């Protein structure tokens, strides 16, 4: 049958051409993709070079908006004195601890409310009501309850991480294809086995996305937490830069945040990729 199709296709060369257009070889696709990645760097690099040139040639002062060279010099200096690592390490530690607490709570409560109608009716309204509160609003209370040091910061981050994870997990479980669950029923899987062999794998892709958005919020809230009084952390570098009038330090800290956030996200994606490799979507390269 496939032979037949091949001969018909070769009969019309235009059709062949169309087929070639529709399905380029893998190697071709990869090369084309690399090109477009480079395209993305063009704009920021151009802007940076222009600004650098403007400051060098005296067209701009660059006092409040320091040129890239000065930002990188600051970054290097911070790295050399070891300050950068202490601050990065502190921030990372807070995010990780807060993320783990928030994510575990989100997964557990999300799984409970996703898999049981009764529990959903019991839990969900309260959690949704709490979600409506801007997480930063908890700060004064957390400081009163947990003190001004690490506990209150971690608590704020955990709250920030919790809600997207909870929503994502509960929603993912509720949207599992009934048809696949029926396959489990046909093979008479117990409730536990159904959860392990069908629900869990089916939920994984959406769970990864929920964790990623949770991690993103974790980084958002670590800044808020470090604003409210810290002597260490990248957020402290930001505040310090503002108070001391060092915009280069602020920008250096921002760059460190960007790199750290991207790195953490990539690590999360990489470590979960084997679990969701089976997915048949266009999202493979995200």
């Amino acid at each position, binding site marked *: 049958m496939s032979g037949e199709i091949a001969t018909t296709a070769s009969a019309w060369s235009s059709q062949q051409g169309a087929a070639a257009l529709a399905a380029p070889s893998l190697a071709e696709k990869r090369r084309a993709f690399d090109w477009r990645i480079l395209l993305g760097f063009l704009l920021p690099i151009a802007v940076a070079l222009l600004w650098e040139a403007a400051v060098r040639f005296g067209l701009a002062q660059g006092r409040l908006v320091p040129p890239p060279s000065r930002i990188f010099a600051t970054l290097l200096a911070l790295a050399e004195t070891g300050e950068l690592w202490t601050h990065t390490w502190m921030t990372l530690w807070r995010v990780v601890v807060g993320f783990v607490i928030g994510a575990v709570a989100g997964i557990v409560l999300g799984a409970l409310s996703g898999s049981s109608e009764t529990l959903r009716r019991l839990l969900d309204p309260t959690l949704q009501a709490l979600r409506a509160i801007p997480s930063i609003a908890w700060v004064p209370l957390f400081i009163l309850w947990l003190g001004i040091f690490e506990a209150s910061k971690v608590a704020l981050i955990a709250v920030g991480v919790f809600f997207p994870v909870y929503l994502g997990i509960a929603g993912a479980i509720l949207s599992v294809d009934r048809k696949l669950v*029926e396959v489990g029923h*046909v*093979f*008479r899987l117990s409730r536990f086995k159904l959860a392990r062999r069908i629900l869990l*794998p089916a939920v994984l892709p959406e769970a990864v996305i929920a964790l990623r958005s949770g991690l993103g919020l974790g980084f958002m809230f670590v800044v808020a937490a470090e604003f409210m009084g810290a002597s260490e952390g990248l957020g402290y570098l930001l505040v310090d830069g503002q108070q001391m009038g060092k915009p280069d330090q602020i920008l250096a800290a921002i760059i460190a945040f960007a790199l750290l956030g991207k790195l953490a996200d990539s690590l999360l994606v990489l470590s979960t990729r084997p679990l969701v490799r*089976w*997915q*048949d979507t266009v999202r493979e390269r995200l």
Partner: protein
Amino acid sequence: MLELEHLSKIYADGTRALSDINLFVRQGEIVSLIGGSGCGKTTLLRLIAGLDRASAGAIKLDGEALSGPHPSVGIVFQEPRLLPWLSVFDNIAFGLDHINATERKARVEHALEKIGLSEHAGRWPRDLSGGQQQRVAIARAFVTHPKVLLLDEPFSALDAFTRASLHEHLLGLWEETRPTVVLVTHDVQEAVTLADRAVVMQPKPGRIFDELPLTLSRPRDKTGLPFETSVRRILTALDHSLNTPQQQPQRERDRQAAALWW
């Protein structure tokens, strides 16, 4: 032997999907349920599979009443319903959890060979064509060696060529363990190709209209006259099933006669 006794199903909204179905299927017989849409074919299959509960009546397998999914009853759905995160091999092995590893491996490999997908054992379902996926689904149902296999229009989404080759794969697998097969279809050719008996159903509410034995010898010659005759017989029965309010004209005539009498 599979027995359906006075089976009816009324949905929560009051729809009468099935009414008083009585059907006896011998061990190893292939019965085809045929009928227009909405005559409750799929509902009937879901009742036997234990995925839905009957409102009244009983389903018995070798005298044992079935309530809920049973290890001796397998089903192949209209869609393959493979688990996308399992390889082809693991999909086929899905129902063999309780069996030891060597036996499981042997059964799955044998089934893979039977459906001609041995070289695809390690691939994801997404890499297979629709016909290949449906073959995997059929193999998944067969490897548990069910006594009764239910097929819910498993070939309806496939093209004619693929369908014909799948009929052969199905019969090939069936030859080995000879399970009782209940095949739902709306394709008369398919019914005559596969079944020993065609059960024609009628809609609103779903009930059995007629049963036609198909005694052609196997393998069946689809171009022969006996095949054509059988197809025509089923088509005629289907036609009648759809325009049966025949009692209606009869009663009308009676009333007219009565009017004349007065």
